[in-house]
């Protein structure tokens, strides 16, 4: 069997329908003008020409999921006595994430260290992860705000995907990266890809140069801890933040969650839902004490988690994949890449509000 494959453009939908027979296929589809990841079906309109508004994290971490159900039962002999039964399901269907960008695939590796590489692996995440194939699409035209190359990625980064797909003139070139990924070559619509290898690799290297590198990074973190620990810095750079949390929900590397119970009569469920560190209640304790009471402290924690705390814990790996969604979708244009360039540049002048000395183009960005 060939070690690469190719799907003709006009066969793509058939290919996805075929994939859907044995697995839930999450693919970027149009909903109005918005591109969102959702389970693909015959009625869906695939959209591969720009990154989806939401990352595919819902395939591994649903926005809301049942951890277990519980059922109270009355003792037939003694009506004052109740017993409880618990039931958890950690068996999940096969899934394919198709057409995600390599940056989003990197997000799953960031989750793996937290959810799987621990002495208490998360059976829900792990269960889905093991049954999911990630088929990433090489990013041909980066979006505004993208900065994957600054955090160690690239539009054709293949390490964290099972398959790398490159869009060419006549169709899609398919390169399995992992053993798991090889299965994709046996889908009937996939033909031998060997004659497209050269064209695909040329396309991949061209795309790298298109990505913006706002802090000329090489994937290594060199944050100024002094500036990071300065309250005034955060008051300056995130004063406009609304604490809406859009950045966390749209982030392929954010994974914080809440656990709540829902009950009706004698039955109920314990539910896990996405949560976000930008919300004041996230750390609010029963006593009223809140260790992160201001948006400045919360934002500092968010940036700290991605660029200092996670790297400290996991061999310097930055927990940001540079997808740029938090920048594109922030309602008040808070820009994490700008904040990082300040923190790395040490040229941030707290007393001088002009952008001349920052080394960063802030013409279009509000400081206040």
């Amino acid at each position: 069997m060939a070690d690469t494959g190719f799907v003709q453009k006009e066969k793509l939908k058939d290919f996805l329908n075929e994939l859907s027979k044995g697995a839930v296929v999450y693919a970027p589809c149009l909903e109005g003008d918005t591109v969102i990841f959702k389970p693909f079906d015959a009625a869906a309109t695939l959209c591969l020409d720009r990154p989806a508004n939401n990352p595919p994290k819902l395939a591994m971490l649903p926005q809301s999921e049942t951890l277990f159900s519980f059922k109270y039962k009355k003792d037939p002999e003694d009506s004052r006595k109740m017993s409880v039964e618990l039931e958890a399901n950690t068996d999940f269907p096969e899934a394919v994430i198709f057409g995600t960008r390599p940056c989003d695939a990197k997000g799953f590796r960031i989750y793996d260290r937290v959810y799987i590489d621990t002495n208490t692996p998360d059976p829900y995440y792990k269960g889905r992860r093991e049954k999911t194939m990630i088929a990433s699409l090489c990013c041909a035209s980066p979006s505004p705000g993208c900065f994957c190359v600054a955090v160690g990625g690239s539009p054709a980064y293949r390490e964290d995907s099972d398959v790398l797909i490159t869009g060419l003139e006549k169709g899609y070139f398919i390169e399995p990266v992992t053993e798991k990924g090889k299965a994709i070559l046996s889908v009937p619509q996939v033909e031998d890809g060997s004659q497209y290898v050269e064209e695909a690799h040329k396309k991949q290297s061209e795309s790298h140069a298109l990505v913006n590198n706002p802090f000329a990074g090489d994937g290594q973190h060199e944050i100024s801890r002094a500036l990071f620990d300065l309250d005034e810095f955060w008051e300056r750079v995130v004063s406009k933040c609304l604490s809406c949390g859009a950045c966390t929900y749209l982030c392929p590397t954010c994974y914080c969650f809440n656990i709540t119970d829902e009950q009706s009569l004698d039955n109920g469920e314990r539910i896990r839902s996405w949560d976000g560190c930008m919300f004041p209640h996230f750390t609010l304790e029963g006593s009223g004490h809140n260790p992160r009471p201001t948006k400045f402290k919360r934002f500092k924690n968010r940036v700290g988690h991605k660029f200092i705390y996670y790297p400290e814990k996991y061999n310097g790996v930055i927990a940001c994949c540079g997808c740029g969604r938090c920048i594109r979708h922030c309602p008040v244009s808070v820009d994490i890449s700008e904040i990082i360039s300040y923190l790395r540049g040490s040229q941030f002048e707290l007393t001088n509000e002009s952008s001349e000395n920052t080394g960063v183009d802030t013409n279009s960005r509000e400081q206040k």
Partner: protein
Amino acid sequence: MTENNNPYLPDLATVVKVIEETPNIKSYQVIFNDPDRMKSFSYEPGQVGQLSVFGVGESTFVINSPPTRMDYLQFSVMKVGEVTSVIHELHEGDQIGIRAPLGNWFPYEEMKGKKILFIGGGIGLAPLRTLILFMLDNRADYGDITVLYGSRTPPDLCYKDDLQEWASRTDVELVLTVDTEYPGWDKRTGFVPTVLNEIAPSPEGAIAITCGPPIMIKFVLQNLAKLNFKDENIITTLEARMKCGIGICGRCNIGSKYICKDGPVFSLAQLKEYQAEI
């Protein structure tokens, strides 16, 4: 049900005794429904558990009975929020869930042969109680034991039976205080940090272990420093809002450390290294 591999799935347990400690604190003695789980269950002093009331939710509490007394597990609960209010309505025989043990524990091996100074306020005595009882059950391993404990008023003192017993023992020095004068109270008055200055314990060969409200801890730490206790000889146990209890959900971090998993027990030296705000 035996030990499961799902860290979110609690073990079922039954409340066997409820003790009213103070007007707003109750202690719950519980046993696992599965006798094998009860027999095989092991933990260390200072470790915590998540208590579930199914339909309401979970909250984190220290196991305040010591592993040397395994007839039951005891948790003390102050009524402050949604879950704790419902826990306060539990009776003997009621079913709950427990996820335990979670977190780290007091470095009691390193404390052997040392003088031990416990400084607690209010319900902050709960984690200290575990270690105090553990040390009393292994009394020969430790030097002088002093317990400084305070609350707002005498009725707010927890574990009154224990306090009575410790007061009667010759191998424990118990110093009790309440914030202000109170009818019938003939012991010390004043805040815990102030009383700490008054009794001025020597830092020589001593370890101080403190837990209480954040404001008390703050001043206790300052006063211990004034008494020349070194940061590595000051131990505290922290709390935070927690959900998963296994270092994933993202709430309880101090920098890269999670209170639920890397804590709740930290030395002051560690907290300074993590740049915790205390």
